[in-house]
């Protein structure tokens, strides 16, 4: 494949949205209130919408029989390159919101840079997505504050969620080979440059939410290399079930 770096680069962006969208979709109908239920479903919808744009572009680059669906559903576990953060389970609503917030802050910073890309397709997707993701970030930020600075129970749950998920934040700023190649071509975003701003934004919200900023300097990685946590296989077996059980059909 020519443009293999670009192809891989796109997956590196879109797989995050795919898996986070999948996680959010699992919650539909089970939210703590009708309003949060609708909001989470809505974020899932937005993310899958973005995923479709990215994968359609990737499928075009790949050519042959590739479609948005073969890319979404017909890769093996080691070929998905989402960060570990987005595959973490919804232990409770604090985890859901903490995961969302820790990803949203990154996602928005990333898209703001991506809209300056030399690749006009990516620029267009970024511009469209920024509006959606700004809303996500506002929503999750509000909930960090509500739960952090709500009751003692909610504070403790939110602190636990932040403490647990913190270990997955550093990976957001790891550069892959495809990243480096695309940065060099003026197409990709240099994620390493987002790190300082990210933590300063995140920390400000945590402080306002009366939460402690985790101090651990140990971080997990692996997702960007396709080495996932044990949660991932179960996400995959559901997500891929129909395409695997009924191959080569139209739906």
């Amino acid at each position, binding site marked *: 494949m020519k443009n293999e770096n670009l192809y891989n680069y796109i997956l590196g962006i879109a797989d995050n949205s795919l898996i986070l969208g999948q996680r959010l*979709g699992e919650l539909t109908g089970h939210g703590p209130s*009708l309003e949060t239920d609708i909001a989470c*479903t809505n974020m899932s919808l937005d993310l899958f919408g973005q995923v479709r744009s990215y994968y359609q572009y990737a499928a075009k680059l790949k050519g042959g029989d590739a479609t948005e669906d073969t890319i979404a559903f017909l890769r093996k576990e080691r070929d998905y390159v989402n960060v570990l953060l987005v595959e973490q389970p919804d232990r409770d609503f604090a985890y859901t919101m903490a995961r969302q917030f820790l990803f949203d802050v990154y996602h928005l910073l990333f898209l703001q840079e991506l809209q300056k890309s030399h690749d006009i397709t990516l620029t267009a997707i970024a511009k469209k997505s920024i509006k959606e993701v700004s809303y996500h970030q506002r929503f999750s930020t509000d909930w960090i504050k509500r739960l952090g600075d709500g009751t003692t129970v909610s504070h403790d749950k939110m602190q636990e969620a932040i403490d647990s998920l913190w270990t997955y934040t550093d990976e957001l700023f790891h550069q892959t080979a495809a990243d480096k190649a695309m940065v060099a071509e003026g197409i990709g975003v240099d994620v390493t440059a987002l790190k300082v701003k990210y933590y300063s934004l995140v920390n400000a919200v945590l402080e306002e939410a009366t939460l402690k900023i985790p101090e651990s300097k140990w971080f997990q990685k692996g997702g960007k290399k396709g080495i996932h946590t044990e949660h991932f296989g179960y996400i995959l077996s559901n997500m891929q079930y129909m395409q695997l059980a009924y191959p080569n059909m139209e739906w």
Partner: protein
Amino acid sequence: MSEEQIKNLEKQFEERIARDEKIEPKDWMPDKYRQTHIRQMSQHAHSEIVGMLPEGNWISRAPTLRRKVALLAKVQDEAGHGLYLYSACETLGISRDALYEQLHSGKAKYSSIFNYPTVTWADMGAVGWLVDGAAIINQVPLCSTSFGPYARAMVRVCKEESFHQRQGYEIMLKLTQGTPEQIDMAQDALNRWWWPSLMMLGPTDAESVHTEQSMKWKLKRKSNDDLRQQFIDQTVPQAELIGLTIPDPDLKWNEERGSYDFGEINWDEFWQVVKGHGPMNKERMKARIDAWEGGEWVRDAAMAHAEKKAERKIKQAI
């Protein structure tokens, strides 16, 4: 108020309805009107919310991204319908918490059809096509019901439901254009959902309560049996068009009536499900109660936070 005054008010009220005027929340209304509307609208709202579950069951396994997005959007619409139906209910002076309490305790009902499991992807087609189809037939007349907030909600709901129904039918269409396995899957879904869909239009007129009063208030404009006939007459040709067979050996066109004759409905099954013993009644209630109880600390926190914020504002203002 004297009895005469009340009688007078009631008379004016009935006349307004007869003139097709809308009753608004702040208008005077008989208590029975209020209670009947709370009951029917909340039942309708509960049906939307519980109805998210059988379809939600396939979100994680939708076969394509396009279908996944459409399914998410559909289930989200149902949540939206629930939201404005609950709001319409609240205008009559009952809180959403109280309505949930009625649902969770089993006091309030919801549409029995959602007590059947969605076992294959084709059920996403069948539910959209048949269940939303039957719902529309129930609901279109309500767009001109007497209570303003309900009528307005119904206009919006029906518009979306009709989109959902087409979407469901399109899923079935696609399956019937597919492999033999897909065609079987579609037929199987029709087989399982057909009779419950007919039951959705309610018990036969002979067994139906509330009807007369509801007719007067335009909460009901046709009898259950008439609605059922309408649903059948509308749906049979749709099935034929995509090569599916209605699972009713007694179904046949009655030239004289200009309608389809159809077989006996298994009312025992209907009442079993209504009474809480359908295949999924317990699971559905468990899912709703778990969500509600599991979300209590979240709602409490939101409340506490809002209070803190308000206090801070007051302090700043001083």
